[in-house]
């Protein structure tokens, strides 16, 4: 359904001196992936691995130097006329404190994609329904983001993403800014929604526990290159690449008692 082939994106770094050569950093190098309907893919990597750049490329928010994103057989390119793509592919951003406009009522934030993407139906009723589906009261719509906790804001961001009834959800570290208890609650919510709505999911995370719980397949990124890919259970049981092994060994675990 959603495929990416040979995605490459590099950024020019500031020159060290006036006469020095312009340094180039490859954020993502020749990454390919394919997502079937209802499939859940975890993209694992640490900071600087290029996972956020990859997500921006998949969302057509950034133009790749090489490679292509294709959705249901149609190429996706940044620029105008992407309404058809946005209706099907939505995003849950990382930072629940930065992803909602502080001067906009929560209801208006959730309503925005409904209006922009011309989603049919009564938008006011739809907003109330969306907020209810993520476990928030209807009066949340008339309040401002600063009146909510981090977990509640993340629920609002999820409600906004679900508005256009997408087929694919791309999530960028959606739980990393939350406390353990709240993280478990939001995780359970996402799992339930994805199950119930049959969504395909691309989850970018450094948290292997979360990926293990939510994803069927996993892609390990290191320095912009996919070093390992496969079924989550296989990769976690028998990691092939040394980096994957190091990553798994590093995860802090509760001692068994």
């Amino acid at each position, binding site marked *: 359904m959603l495929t990416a082939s040979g995605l490459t994106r590099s950024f020019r770094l500031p020159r060290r001196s006036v006469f020095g050569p312009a340094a180039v950093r490859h954020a993502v190098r020749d990454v390919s992936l394919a997502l079937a309907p209802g499939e859940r893919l975890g993209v694992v990597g640490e900071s600087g691995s290029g996972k956020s750049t990859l997500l921006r490329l998949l969302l057509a928010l950034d133009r790749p130097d090489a490679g292509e994103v294709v959705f249901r057989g149609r190429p996706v390119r940044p620029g105008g006329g992407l309404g058809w793509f946005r209706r099907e592919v939505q995003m849950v951003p990382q930072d629940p404190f930065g992803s909602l406009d502080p001067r906009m009522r929560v209801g208006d934030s959730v309503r925005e994609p409904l209006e922009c993407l011309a989603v049919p139906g009564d938008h006011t009723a739809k907003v109330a329904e969306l907020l209810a589906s993520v476990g928030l009261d209807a009066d949340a719509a008339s309040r401002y983001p600063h009146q909510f906790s981090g977990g509640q804001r993340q629920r609002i961001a999820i409600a906004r993403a679900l508005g256009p009834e997408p087929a694919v959800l791309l999530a960028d570290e959606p739980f990393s800014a939350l406390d*353990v208890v709240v993280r*478990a*609650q939001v995780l359970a919510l996402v799992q339930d929604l994805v199950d119930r709505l049959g969504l395909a999911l691309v989850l970018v995370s450094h948290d292997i526990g979360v990926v293990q719980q939510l994803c069927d397949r996993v892609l390990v990124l290191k320095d912009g290159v996919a070093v390992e890919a496969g079924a989550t259970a296989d990769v976690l*049981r028998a990691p092939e690449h040394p980096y994957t092994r190091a*990553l798994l060994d590093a995860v*802090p*675990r*509760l*001692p068994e008692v």
Partner: protein
Amino acid sequence: MTLLAVRDLTVGIGGAVLVDGVSFTLDPGERLGLIGESGSGKSLTALAVLGLLPAGATVTGSITLDGRELVGLGDRRLSALRGRKLAMVFQEPRTALNPLMRVGRQVAEPLHHHGLLTRRAARTRAVDLLADVGLPDPAHTARAYPHQLSGGQLQRVGIAAALACGPALLLADEPTTALDVTVQAEILALLDRLVDEHGTALVFITHDMAVLARVARRVLVLGKGKVLEEGELDSVLRAPGHEYTRTLLTAARAASFRREA
């Protein structure tokens, strides 16, 4: 012989009681983990011990270090103790270091400031300390500015600076939250080793029980400013006594990675 004794510590800011009657003791070389969510009062407790509470905070109760009362001690006396007897490692290594000062100097500063070493000897010692926290090419790294180092390297510098004067007590406030998992594992191992070698007592603050389990032996569970549970790590994990601890453990288990999967 008790190193640190906190008795009935209460901290209020603007009418709200944020730390409410917290008591605990710490022996020399002991490692205690303070766990709780944001708003549980864990960071304020540490700041109270350091005498670094925000202006306008009211403190009652008692905090003694080596039998010496810290509550109500003047700022000059406290800053003579800070860095020398007790030190802190912060959550954000990037903001905890001065961006305009070479890192070697930031490590050397407390040594010279407390009159332990001459400026030159402090500079040499700083390079040794940077080597001790596992930084490659310490003589070269000492001349780097913070923006030239990675987050993990900066946290190593922060630890070197904290341990420079050989404090009896080290407080670490979520020192690995801002770091990647592999770097977090390295930093935790480093703390574990250094605290052992120096015989430093450790108060480790975190919201993550799995991280706590790597460095602490005893745990204090805080919620809404109160101590909810205290005990040896093993027994708390095996038989949590408080409802909140159980929630915390269930949540941590639900989201944590299991190897046998």
